[in-house]
């Protein structure tokens, strides 16, 4: 293997910023993560030209997987246009000459995301990389990493369930809004990064490969395609996604596209009242398109 093989003329950096040895190590960790669904594989997280915590884990996975004919999409909280997404996309475009980027979920082959899985179902031709701040779900109940590793290996997750029990006692429902602990393939429980509960069912039996990269914590884990992912719950208090019904019991609709089956963000409108809008901006645009065509407006 030649570490300089991908250097393009006129560009001081290797294709994909990371050198080929670093990419190889990350790919190896990814393969192991896929082979042991839900297991947190340690890897040597490299220094990236941005602060840890800004998506360096996800970015290293993306840069290790990206090839010259890739179509990449970067989202942050569902939006392609937020600062974090724009900066990461520009960085990828700059360091991977020849690849193309898109905002359309249907067209991309590789998605790097923070906090959301797109509403549009992913296909077997796609890979989604999620940026992870805290990879270990047990960190809230056990401070010692040594003990956490034993708990993972023995699938001892009763203390996470006690947390759910306490939630129901105090609030009559499970109040975990994001990072919902989810059991993968019947053994390891993962922290599925800060995706909302709404996105947790999308992990189950997914057609696309779902990869998780934690740059600061130096861990990679995966939910391989068509793998069982069950959110932890009690047999008589099942897992529930967010409830978007209003006081009258009607499902709220997106103020922009009118869609009633997507995850909604709550805003304070200019008038002072509350308004709801799709969190996934590409999905919202796609819903808007047919509506505009019907009205005869240019899309």
């Amino acid at each position, binding site marked *: 293997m030649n570490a300089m093989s991908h250097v393009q003329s006129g560009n001081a950096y290797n294709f994909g910023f990371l050198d080929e040895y670093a990419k190889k190590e990350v790919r190896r960790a990814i393969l192991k993560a896929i082979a042991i669904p839900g297991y947190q594989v340690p890897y040597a997280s490299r220094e990236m030209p941005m602060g840890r915590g800004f998506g360096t884990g996800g970015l290293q996975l993306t840069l290790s997987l990206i090839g010259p004919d890739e179509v990449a999409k970067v989202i942050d909280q569902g939006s392609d246009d937020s600062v974090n997404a724009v900066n990461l996309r520009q960085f990828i475009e700059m360091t991977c000459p020849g690849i193309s980027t898109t905002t359309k979920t249907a067209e991309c082959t590789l998605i790097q995301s923070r906090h959301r899985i797109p509403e549009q179902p992913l296909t077997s031709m796609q890979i989604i990389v999620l940026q992870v701040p805290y990879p270990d779900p047990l960190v809230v109940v056990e401070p010692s990493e040594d003990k956490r590793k034993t708990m993972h290996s023995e699938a001892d997750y009763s203390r996470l369930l*006690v947390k759910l029990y306490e939630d129901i006692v105090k609030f009559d429902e499970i109040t975990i809004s994001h990072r919902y602990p989810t059991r993968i393939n019947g053994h390891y429980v993962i922290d599925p990064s800060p995706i909302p509960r709404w996105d947790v069912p999308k992990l189950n039996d997914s057609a696309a490969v779902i990869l998780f990269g934690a740059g600061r914590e130096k861990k990679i884990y995966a939910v391989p395609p068509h793998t069982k992912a069950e959110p932890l719950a*009690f047999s*008589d208090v099942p897992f529930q996604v967010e409830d978007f019904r209003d006081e009258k019991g009607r499902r709220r609709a997106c103020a922009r596209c009118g869609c009633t089956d997507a995850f909604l963000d709550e805003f304070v409108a200019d008038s002072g009242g509350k308004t709801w809008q799709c969190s996934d901006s590409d999905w919202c645009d796609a819903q808007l398109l047919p509506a505009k065509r019907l009205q005869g407006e240019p899309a």
Partner: protein
Amino acid sequence: MNKILEVRNLGKIYGPGCPQCIESTGPDADTNLCPHCGSVVAIHDVSFDLFEGEILGVMGESGSGKSTVVKALYFDQPPSSGAAIFYDRDKQYELFALNAAQQRWLRNHRFGMVYQNPHLGLNFNISAGGNIAERLLMSDLMDYGAIRERAKALLARTEVLLSRVDDLPKNFSGGMQQRVQIAKALATQPPLLFLDEVTTGLDLSVQARILDLILEIQQELKTAMIVVTHDLGVIRLLAGRAIVMKYGRVIEAGLTDQILEDPQHAYTQRLVASAL
């Protein structure tokens, strides 16, 4: 009577250990600290049997190794040598030959432990009910309603006010914390219960009620128990048989009445005399 536990030649040495450790420690040497290598011989050659529904008392002074015995059997600290066989219905387990996951399974499903310090047995950041739920969840009960019912029933049985099910144990009195610990230990109806100085530090009337509770549980559930204490009164009240330990060795074993009325070993004689 069915044997439930068989302990043979249990030993625990803290430190590097040397060939002279055993002969240079013990009651005759009047120390448990090896003068050659500085190791502490916490227990050596401890053997006993325990039968179904029986309470065995383990007494001795501080540092005699009595707590180390139950800690080894409850897998809190692995022993350096020895064997223990646990007979459970028609199965038997070589306790120290099991792997960590099997040990954890036994601990969660078939054993119960009540510590002297409630901080060791309870999680003070979750409610009393949550503490019991933790143990039920460990033994794979996954139904919230059923867990809630069991937790309430257990707390009622151990005379904790039901209105305080969802309070944090740190807001409880010492006696109540101990009751919650007992309820937690009993949650899975274990056939074997370890009690490590459960009444030490509680005032006398509370002590009496906790001891009553332990006796009632023994009568009701036929739970076998190992009671570790330095309090001869507790031994007299609870234990049918007892062993006396000093510097990590068993110096006397037999029926409680016999030991207390007619102690053979000089140390036991002193112990009994001092208590009277």
